[in-house]
C-alpha cells in the first residue's frame, strides 16, 4: 500500500497514523472523534449471519462491499447438536445467497485464519465481530472488536466512529528465559494492570524482546490486549512481518517505505511502561480471572485433571512446537487428559509434516478439531468439577462449559509440563 507523506505538525503514534489514514485526514489528535472507512470487516458463525441477516432484512439494505467482508465458521463447528446445526446452516445459506467471496468454513479460528489467508497487512483499518479481534494489531493493522449491531452499521455504511486513543507503550527488553514466552508476558501485564487497565486505549508492544519474537508470539500479545481492556494491541511491522506476509502469499509485498512509516514517531506522546524480559518466570492465572496471575511457583503442585492446548491465544504452530519440546519422549501422567485443538487446519498440517503432532500423540495427547471449541464452552466442553490448565485467554467461572470447573491459564510450555506431572509444574524443571 502506498502511503501519502503526511506533513504532520506533531510526532504521531502508530495508532494515530493508522486512524488518520482510515479517516482520510493528514493527522488526528488524541481524544478527537473521527469517522473511519473500514478496509475489512470480519465476523463468525456466532456473531455474524444469525444476528446480521435479520437486521439487514429489516433495513432492506445491501452489504456495502462484499470484497471487504470475511466470514469464518469457527464457533459452532463441528456441529455438536441441533442448535449448532441451525446456526451454522444460517451462516452457510447466507454466505451462498450473498455470494460472499471470502468464506473460511471449518478451517480454524478466525483470528489465526484471517492472516494465514492473506487478509491482513500493515496499514489496514479492520473490525471484527469478536472480542479477540485486536489480534490483527500484530500485523500493523488497527483492528478491534465490536458488537453485532455495530457490525450491522459497518456492513451497511462501510464506516465506523472512534475516539483517537492515547498510546500505552509496553516496552520489553532482553531475552526471555528458556520455557518462557509471550503468554507469560501477557499474564504478567494483565496481573499488574488489571482487566480494564488498558482503559480502551491503544497498547503498543515494543522493545528488543518484542522485535525478537516471531509473528505467532506477537499475535499472542495482541490477542490478549483484550484481557487488558485495550481497544487495540499494536506492534509496528518490521522485516519479520514482511517475511511472514511474503510466505503467506500476500500480494505486492510490503515496501520498505511503508515499514518505516507504520511506527510511532520519536517524541510522540505515549505512556511507557518498561519490563525486563530476562527475569520473567512462567506465569499462571488462577481461577476465575486472567488478572489473578502469579509466577508459577505460587500454584506449583496443584493437581490438574485436564490440560488443554487450544484457542486463538495458545494453539498456533509455535505453541504446539513449544508443547512438543516439553513432551518429546515422555508420557502425560496417569489420570490426566491432554487435549490439543490446533488453532487452524494450516497449523495442524504443518505440525503433522514436522512430526510435532506425532510427538504430542505419542505423549498421550488427543487431537480435537481446529475450532473455538472448549475455550468458549462450545462443542466438547469441559464437564463437572474438573481442574483445568489451559493455553486459552479467559478463565471466568463457567467459561469452558462447567460452572464447577476451575481453570488455570498458562503458556503451552507450562500446560505441557503440568500434563506430564499431573500437577502445575514449572516447565523449566522439565526442559533443564
Amino acid at each position: 500500500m502506498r502511503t501519502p507523506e503526511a506533513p504532520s505538525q506533531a510526532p504521531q503514534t502508530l495508532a494515530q497514523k493508522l486512524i488518520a489514514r482510515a479517516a482520510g485526514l493528514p493527522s488526528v489528535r488524541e481524544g478527537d472523534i473521527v469517522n473511519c472507512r473500514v478496509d475489512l470487516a470480519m465476523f463468525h458463525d456466532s456473531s455474524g449471519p444469525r444476528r446480521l441477516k435479520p437486521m439487514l432484512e429489516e433495513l432492506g439494505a445491501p452489504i456495502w462491499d462484499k470484497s471487504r467482508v470475511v466470514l469464518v465458521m469457527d464457533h459452532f463447528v463441528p456441529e455438536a447438536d441441533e442448535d449448532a446445526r441451525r446456526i451454522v446452516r444460517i451462516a452457510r445459506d447466507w454466505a451462498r445467497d450473498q455470494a460472499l467471496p471470502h468464506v473460511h468454513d471449518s478451517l480454524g479460528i478466525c483470528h489465526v485464519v484471517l492472516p494465514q489467508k492473506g487478509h491482513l497487512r500493515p496499514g489496514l483499518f479492520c473490525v471484527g465481530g469478536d472480542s479477540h479481534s485486536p489480534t490483527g494489531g500484530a500485523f500493523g493493522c488497527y483492528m478491534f472488536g465490536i458488537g453485532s449491531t455495530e457490525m450491522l452499521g459497518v456492513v451497511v455504511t462501510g464506516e465506523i466512529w472512534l475516539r483517537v486513543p492515547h498510546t500505552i507503550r509496553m516496552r520489553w527488553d532482553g531475552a526471555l528465559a528458556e520455557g518462557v514466552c509471550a503468554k507469560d508476558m501477557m499474564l504478567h501485564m494483565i496481573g499488574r494492570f488489571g482487566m480494564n487497565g488498558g482503559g480502551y486505549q491503544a497498547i503498543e508492544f515494543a522493545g528488543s524482546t518484542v522485535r525478537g519474537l516471531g509473528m505467532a508470539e506477537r499475535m499472542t500479545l495482541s490477542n490478549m490486549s483484550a484481557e487488558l481492556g485495550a481497544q487495540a494491541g499494536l506492534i509496528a511491522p518490521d522485516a519479520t512481518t514482511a517475511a511472514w506476509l511474503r510466505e503467506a502469499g500476500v500480494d505486492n509485498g510490503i515496501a520498505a517505505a511503508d515499514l518505516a512509516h507504520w511506527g510511532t514517531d520519536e517524541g510522540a506522546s505515549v505512556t511507557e511502561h518498561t519490563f525486563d524480559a530476562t527475569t520473567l518466570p512462567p506465569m499462571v492465572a488462577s481461577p476465575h480471572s486472567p488478572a489473578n496471575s502469579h509466577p508459577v511457583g505460587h500454584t506449583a503442585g496443584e493437581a490438574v485433571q485436564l490440560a488443554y492446548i487450544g484457542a486463538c491465544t495458545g494453539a498456533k504452530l509455535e505453541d504446539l512446537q513449544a508443547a512438543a519440546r516439553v513432551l518429546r519422549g515422555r508420557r502425560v501422567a496417569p489420570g490426566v487428559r491432554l487435549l490439543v485443538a490446533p488453532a487452524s487446519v494450516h497449523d495442524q498440517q504443518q505440525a503433522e509434516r514436522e512430526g510435532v503432532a506425532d510427538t504430542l500423540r505419542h505423549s498421550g495427547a488427543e487431537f480435537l478439531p481446529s475450532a473455538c471449541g472448549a475455550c468458549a464452552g462450545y462443542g466438547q466442553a469441559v464437564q463437572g468439577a474438573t481442574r483445568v490448565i489451559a493455553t486459552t485467554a479467559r478463565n471466568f467461572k463457567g467459561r469452558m462449559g462447567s460452572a464447577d470447573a476451575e481453570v488455570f491459564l498458562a503458556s503451552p510450555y507450562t500446560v505441557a509440563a503440568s500434563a506430564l506431572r499431573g500437577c502445575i509444574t514449572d516447565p523449566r524443571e522439565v526442559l533443564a
Partner: protein
Amino acid sequence: MNESLHRVWRVGADVDTDALAPGHAMKHGMDVIARHCLESLRPDFVGGVRPGDLLVAGPNFGIGSSREQAAAVLVALGVRAVVAPSYSGLFFRNAFNVGLLLLTCAQAERLEETELVGLDTTDPLAPALLRAGGERLACEAVPPFLMERVRCGGLLNELKQRLAQGTP
C-alpha cells in the same frame, strides 16, 4: 429539564457481562435473559425494577465479552440510564448502539440505594444528576451523535431513519 425523578439501584465495581446476561440464558430470547439479569448480584433487581429507574455502579461496569445483550437487557427492563465512574470500552459502544444511555460520573458512588434523582441531559456536553438537596453531580460529556442514537432507540432505528431519508 428534569421531567421526572429516577429511583437508584446500586451495584458494585467490575460488574461483568455474564452478570448482566448470564451465559446459560444466552441461547434464549431477551424475555428469558431479562429474567436472569443481575441474578448473582441483586436477585431482587428483576422483580423490583421499574421503567425509568437508574442503575448506579462502581468502576469498570460491563467488562467481559462483546455480547451486546448485556446492554440490551437493561433497555428491555426499562432502565433509564446507567451511572458509573467508568465502563468497559466495548460495553460503552454496545450500550449506545442498542439505545442505552451511559453517564460517566466520578461521584456516582455518592448516590444512595432507592434515592430519587433528576436527570439533566439538555446539553449532551454537560449532563448532570440532580439530588433532592439541590446538589448537582456533573457527568462527562456524551458525544451529541451518541445522545441522538439513544433518542432514536439505537443504531438499528437510526439506520432505518437515515435510509428512509436516502443517506445511509
